[in-house]
């Protein structure tokens, strides 16, 4: 199945949806555009059909098991979408004022409070629009803190090699220098290496715990002590909160600031690339620097905290208050879980990961850190399969698609060769996990008997493997009309 571009339709587009007559324009002639923008000319049916068909070309949680490591692709409850789209929520203007928003503001206030509870932090701002923006807010707060102390030499951010790409990128965006440290063989950070790099130039360290290696950093208290003693602060990348909900608190571990990917742990949809939410939580000392706006309660009224009331704030990160609709979905989901439900999330996310790890290990796959407990995810290395057959992690990934499973994350973290980072999440059944194991076994079998066939995968999807080199070398990034398509501009009347 394939679908033409929407621009290739040549119909009368849906007209007459604005029946209220538009009086003549008072726009000056020289301000007007003279060309016709390239927008579709498709009927309503063609538009509906086109995008419905396109949707069917996607894998998604609602149709496939999607064990993409570090992404926490769990079930997105339909009720969260339904309720976040109640008409009053959709129609509320962001500048509508607190008198037209007590329901919304109370909800956001309670969300802040719940996020404080699950992280053990002192205060939360919901405004960052994704994990990376939460990281930005965090590093900017660390900088603001040092600046407020008059401590102007602290320009370095320490980042482990296993860190997500957004961590070093964020540090750079904030104007910091990135210092990389390495992971020890057991998956924990090498404390000696850490001690060697901290100093008066250390602004802070960015850590994920459990790390993207799928293991819990056992020496986190020592790390906190080392960094704090050196005068630095600790940033917690909360992408992996799904592993520790109700089990332990980043605040207790000694972190000063944390972002949470609500679109992962709290199951707001990923929408084919977003939107997300990267709410940030802080310890007491960073509280004055929180990005605005956030919500406070004054008597019975929920009100905005803004630049005026927070003069030390790092400022605004979005035109209004972040991705409110995403925040509503997270709130609804959290209330449906309740405290016990949250504990069960990590219980079963971790159980599923460990079960899958053992099942794959029994089937003879190499586990990156076999001596460790898996957290909510774990790493398989296909080094041996690659060496023996030439079939690599990418080939396995594509072959999994043919088996009806989305591929795990491949080649990340980069320190494990030919790796698959596998995160099943708690919402998948044992049955789904067993199906995945069976597919892995069957692909490996084919790798040893007919490796070229595996390298041809996928065969059953709308396209075969795509030419990425050509995509980058001869970028074709927008559609252009072949000739002048003015023939059909007037509508049938």
């Amino acid at each position: 199945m394939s679908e033409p571009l929407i621009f290739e339709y040549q119909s009368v587009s849906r007209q007459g949806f604005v029946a209220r007559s538009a009086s003549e324009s008072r726009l000056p002639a020289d301000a007007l555009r003279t060309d016709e923008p390239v927008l579709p000319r498709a009927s309503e049916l063609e538009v509906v059909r086109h995008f419905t068909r396109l949707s069917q070309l996607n894998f998604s949680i609602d149709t496939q098991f999607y064990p993409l490591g570090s992404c926490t692709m769990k079930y997105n409850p339909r009720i969260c979408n339904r309720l976040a789209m109640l008409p009053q929520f959709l129609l509320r203007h962001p500048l509508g004022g607190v008198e037209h928003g007590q329901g919304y503001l109370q909800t956001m206030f309670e969300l802040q409070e719940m996020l404080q509870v699950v992280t053990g932090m002192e205060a939360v701002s919901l405004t960052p629009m994704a994990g990376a923006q939460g990281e930005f807010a965090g590093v900017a707060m660390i900088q603001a803190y040092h600046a407020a102390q008059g401590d102007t030499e602290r320009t370095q951010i320490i980042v482990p090699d296993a860190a997500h790409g957004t961590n070093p990128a964020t540090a750079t965006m904030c104007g910091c220098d990135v210092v990389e440290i390495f992971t020890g063989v057991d998956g924990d950070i090498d404390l000696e290496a850490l001690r060697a790099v901290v100093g008066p130039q250390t602004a802070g360290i960015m850590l994920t715990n459990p790390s993207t290696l799928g293991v819990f950093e056992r020496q986190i208290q020592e790390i906190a002590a080392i960094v704090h003693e050196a005068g630095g602060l600790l940033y917690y990348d909360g992408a992996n909160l799904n592993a520790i909900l109700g089990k332990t608190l980043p605040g207790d571990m000694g972190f000063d600031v944390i972002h949470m990917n609500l679109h992962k742990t709290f199951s707001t949809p990923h929408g084919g690339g977003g939107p997300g939410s990267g709410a940030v939580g802080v310890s007491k000392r960073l509280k004055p620097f929180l990005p605005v706006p956030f919500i406070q309660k004054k008597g019975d009224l929920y009100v905005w905290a803004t630049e005026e009331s927070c003069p030390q704030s790092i400022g605004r990160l979005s035109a209004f208050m972040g991705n409110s609709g995403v925040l509503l979905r997270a709130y609804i989901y959290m209330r449906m879980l309740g405290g016990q439900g949250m504990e069960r999330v990590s219980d079963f996310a971790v159980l599923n990961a460990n079960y899958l790890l053992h099942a794959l290990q029994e089937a003879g796959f190499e586990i990156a850190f076999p001596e460790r407990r898996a957290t909510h995810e774990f790493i398989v290395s296909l080094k041996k399969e690659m060496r023996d057959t030439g079939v690599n992690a990418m080939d396995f990934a594509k072959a999994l698609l043919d088996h009806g499973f989305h591929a795990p994350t491949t080649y990340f973290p980069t320190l494990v060769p030919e790796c698959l980072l596998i995160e099943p999440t708690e919402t998948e059944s044992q049955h789904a996990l067993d199906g995945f194991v069976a597919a892995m076994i069957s692909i490996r079998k084919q790798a040893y008997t007919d490796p070229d066939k595996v390298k041809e995968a996928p065969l059953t999807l709308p396209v075969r493997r795509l030419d990425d080199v050509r995509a980058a070398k001869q970028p074709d990034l927008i559609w252009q009309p072949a000739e002048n398509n003015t023939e059909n501009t007037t509508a049938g009347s």
Partner: protein
Amino acid sequence: MPFIPHTDTDIARMLQRAGISDISQLFDEIPVDLKIDGLEAIGPALSEAEIAQLMQQRARADGEPLCFMGAGAYEHYIPAAVWDIATRGEFYSAYTPYQAEASQGTLQVIYEFQTMIASLNGLDVSNASLYDGATAFAEACLMAVRANRKSKSKKILVSRLLSPVFRSVATTILQGQRIELVELPIRNGQTDIAALKNFVDEDFAAVAIQNPSFLGTLEDVDTLTDWAHEHGALVIGITNPMSLALLKAPGQWGTAGADIACGEGQPMGIPLSSGGPYVGYLVCRKAIMRQMPGRIVGRTVDIEGKPGFTLTLQAREQHIRRSKATSNICTNQGLIATAATIYMSLMGAEGLRQVAHSCNANTHMLVDALCALPGISQPFDTPLFHEGVVQLDRPVAGFLMELSRQGILGGYDLSADYPELGHALLVCATEQRSAADIASYVAAAGAALEVAV
């Protein structure tokens, strides 16, 4: 518990296979003194019926005032098909299209989004979306600094008529890299062209112009663009895509056109929803596309020569380049871009023109009627697009509060951001406001003005 499928039998089998006897053992690598006793403070679980009841209560508490507020977010009619399709599970619950073969739906949609947004702005290349208009502007500034080969300047000359929140967000984001926004003053509701002479000796990476301006007025984009290019600066155009159905695109500004354009895509089928999720866009000339932040989708072919789509030019991005990436952005606003693409497809160029015309006519009707009231006047008569400024004989806040009591959201109080305009109020009437709605506003305003100051 609603979302966990495991039966007791499953659990027993799984624990056995994992070689343990109890789920709590799975957490035995967490140091004992870091363990907590659960999350009782979160409270009990609510059933779907209960949460539905609760959220309906909350929603009702927010009311549904008649909205005459614009100021960067607009209530347009959104055809039912837009979100019916965008929230289909296959779009809604997919991840970023890293596995291209299993994501052709999302990828093609984004390619179509890029095409429409680039074309509306009259430029060559668009990315797959940024968080919102404000962060898109910040990224445009970062990009301009990187891309301007003629200038090493870290200064951007920005009209005071650029949205105050856009400037505020950019300031937050640019401070780490010590990029500075320098303000161009205003005059008569437009950027003061005469004031440009004060900046001739300064070096700027770019000049940023919002058209229509935050006050809804049309700028002299040609003069500003040409001035910038003459002075070695790039031009960043900040646009409202609805206006581009009618107005000259940034790519056509002045002699050479703007180099970068960005803006807030919310008017393209995205509900107001308290400010987000919206969708920022960023477009540019092909020559500087490798400085673009964020994801980009390209069309290519598969090994059989069949056309297909894939994420491309990834060497700019954080997951490849890490600390050397053009931006830290990872998750963007994919689903919102999808909805915007469906909206633009349903409307077509003609549909957008109709809406834009209708908004424009409505706002004129409103401004004219308000200015016919004693105590309200028009501070300047610069041509406007679908938002307008009126001046009151008294503080705006009290007036708005009075309207709010009558269920009317009367507009945006400009006095904090633009004290030089006096008691100024920014109003907007989109195509969603009927003549009767406008009459209600005018009547309520008349009544409010009768109360002594």
